[in-house]
């Protein structure tokens, strides 16, 4: 039966070509939308995790309450001890301290007086420890445009755009500390004026011995697991809760920071909405296509009914045809959609030119991301909508009256 239908479809291009093009187009869009949303939203969450929130973050209660102000005077004191406890309690996670700070970077002239200066966002991370995961996590090595990774106290990395603005070159001295190179983070907010320093330098400069504003925790596999993160936070907070001590530690999951919960929820909803919209829209399109096809095949169906074919059989054969078209169209659409997504995953779209003034911490190169469900997600609208469209348009078969068939066929 399937072979018979397939032959019919292949031989009569009017029955197959347009529906397959329509289904493929819809599936391409569905697959592309899925991978694009996964890529862009996922990158935003991933960037936030890497640069700001971690998968979980430990701070003092008072620091957490005023986190927008980066209140380093409310930092946690005694991080070595706390980190040991965290490593013991959660061996599947990597723990690292960070200090964020704002300030002024001042480049001197030959007399030691201000030549140029700019306000900066500083990020103190563990650069000097052997095999520090922070270097990979922040993609520092690949981001270095000029100079080298700091390996001596007092050396810093400066965003490339800022170094050009201030006319600073690798090896030049700047206020308080000396620079060894320039980097491009791929985020406008940081490229405009950020510096990276080793945590030990920041602790000395900011008088924060054995203290840091934040201790970030990352799952060892590098992938954010919301349920696991929430569970870790719940456990930690119940162990360390001390309402009377405003400097007691508190842990927040990525979801609970920077309003990322709405972003994560949006990611879940977005996929559902995309599929629903395409199923609905494509059903309408294919219903219309089915109606047109039905009208065009009006004579054929009439003849089949006139020679005694059962109405149910005609209806079922049409549905079977549409299932075949759905499978073929979805397959073609998925391949094309994945190919486009792959290109966008590899090369991305550089939106840096349009985000010159943004202060959001988002990547400038937007990329798609091929997730496992992208391989099958297109089949859902591709099959459902095609079949639904045919089922709706095929109802007309039951309205045909046998008595009028011969009269119609005479015409």
């Amino acid at each position, binding site marked *: 039966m399937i072979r018979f239908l397939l032959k019919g479809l292949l031989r009569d291009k009017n029955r197959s070509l347009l529906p397959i093009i329509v289904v493929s187009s819809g599936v391409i869009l569905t697959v592309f939308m899925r991978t694009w949303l996964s890529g862009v939203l996922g990158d935003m969450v991933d960037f936030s995790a890497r640069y700001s929130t971690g998968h979980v973050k430990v701070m003092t209660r008072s620091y957490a309450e005023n986190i927008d*102000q980066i209140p380093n*005077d*409310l930092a946690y004191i005694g991080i070595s001890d706390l980190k040991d406890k965290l490593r013991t309690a959660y061996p599947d996670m990597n723990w690292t301290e960070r200090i964020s700070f704002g300030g*002024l970077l001042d480049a001197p002239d030959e007399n030691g007086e201000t030549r140029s200066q700019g306000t900066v966002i500083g990020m103190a991370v563990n650069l000097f420890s052997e095999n520090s995961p922070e270097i990979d996590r922040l993609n520092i090595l690949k981001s270095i445009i000029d100079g080298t990774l700091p390996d001596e106290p007092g050396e810093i990395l400066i965003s490339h755009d800022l170094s050009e603005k201030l006319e600073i070159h690798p090896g030049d001295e700047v*206020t308080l500390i000396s620079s060894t190179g320039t980097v491009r983070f791929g985020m406008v907010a940081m490229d405009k004026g950020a510096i990276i320093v080793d945590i030990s330098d920041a602790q000395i400069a900011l*008088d924060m011995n054995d203290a840091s504003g934040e201790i970030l925790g990352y799952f060892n596999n590098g992938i954010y697991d919301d349920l696991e993160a929430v569970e870790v936070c719940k456990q930690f907070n119940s162990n360390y809760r001390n309402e009377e001590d*405003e400097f007691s530690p508190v842990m927040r999951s990525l979801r609970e920071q920077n309003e990322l919960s709405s972003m994560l929820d949006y990611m879940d909803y977005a996929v559902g909405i995309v599929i629903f919209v395409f199923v609905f829209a494509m059903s309408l399109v294919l219903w219309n296509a089915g109606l047109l096809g039905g009208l065009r095949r009006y004579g054929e169906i009439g003849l089949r009914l006139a020679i005694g074919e059962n109405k149910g059989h005609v209806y079922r054969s049409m549905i079977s045809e549409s299932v075949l078209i759905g499978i073929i169209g979805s397959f073609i659409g998925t391949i094309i959609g994945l190919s486009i997504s792959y290109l966008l995953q590899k090369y991305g779209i550089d939106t840096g030119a349009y985000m010159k003034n943004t202060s959001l911490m988002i990547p400038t190169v937007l990329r798609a991301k091929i997730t496992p469900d992208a391989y099958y997600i297109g089949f859902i609208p591709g099959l459902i909508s095609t079949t639904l469209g045919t089922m709706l348009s095929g109802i007309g078969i039951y309205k045909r009256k046998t008595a009028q068939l011969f009269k119609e066929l005479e015409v």
Partner: protein
Amino acid sequence: MKKILIIILFIYTGCYGQTPTGEEILNRIDENMASESRILTSRMVIHGRRGSRTIESKSWSEGEDRSFTEYLSPPREKGVKMLKLEDQLWMFSPSTDRTIQISGHMLRQSVMGSDLSYEDMMDDKKLISDYDAVVVGSEEFEGQQCWALELTANNDDVAYFFRKIWVDKDRYIPLKSELFAKSGQLLKKMEMFDIEKIEGRWFPKRMVFKDMLKDGDGTEFFIDDIQFNVKFPESLLTKASLRK
């Protein structure tokens, strides 16, 4: 009838005469506070949520445009010097042996974690030159009868567009000030206590500053010693003195 009118006119002019205008009050404040030169030794106690820090300093100022400050303690801040020449501010830090000009947004940053910004430290200008004042009432503050004034900036070159001040009616000292942004947001509060007569002027020995956008219990500023109209070497108010 004529008598009644004369009495009303007398009462009206009498009352009117007792309430000085905003401009008059500002002039009186400036007369009391401003001096040709000043040498001041002070302590700044910064009350954070974790505890308090005390920073001692000595400053020399001439008129409203030139001043030099040297921080004396704690050891971490010792030797830091600041020089203000008109609208420019330089800072010298001995640990880096660098003279850095503080400008732009940086002027609004906190000085050593206190509730005062660099801009506040620089602000020695007479109120009358930057603000138009209106007397809005009479209120009591810390047991003293005060004129309540609303000050609106008459130029854009001010840190606070709008101020509300409570001026001691007897001593013409602004005992309390609220400093607002152009948007109407309250940015800082300032209160003056322990008013003493020093060399013929009423001067507060203790001031409390509170940055309303910041946590903590504010910054207290104690004046340990103050001398008015004393001569000091002119070379002190030059950039060369920063490195000495």
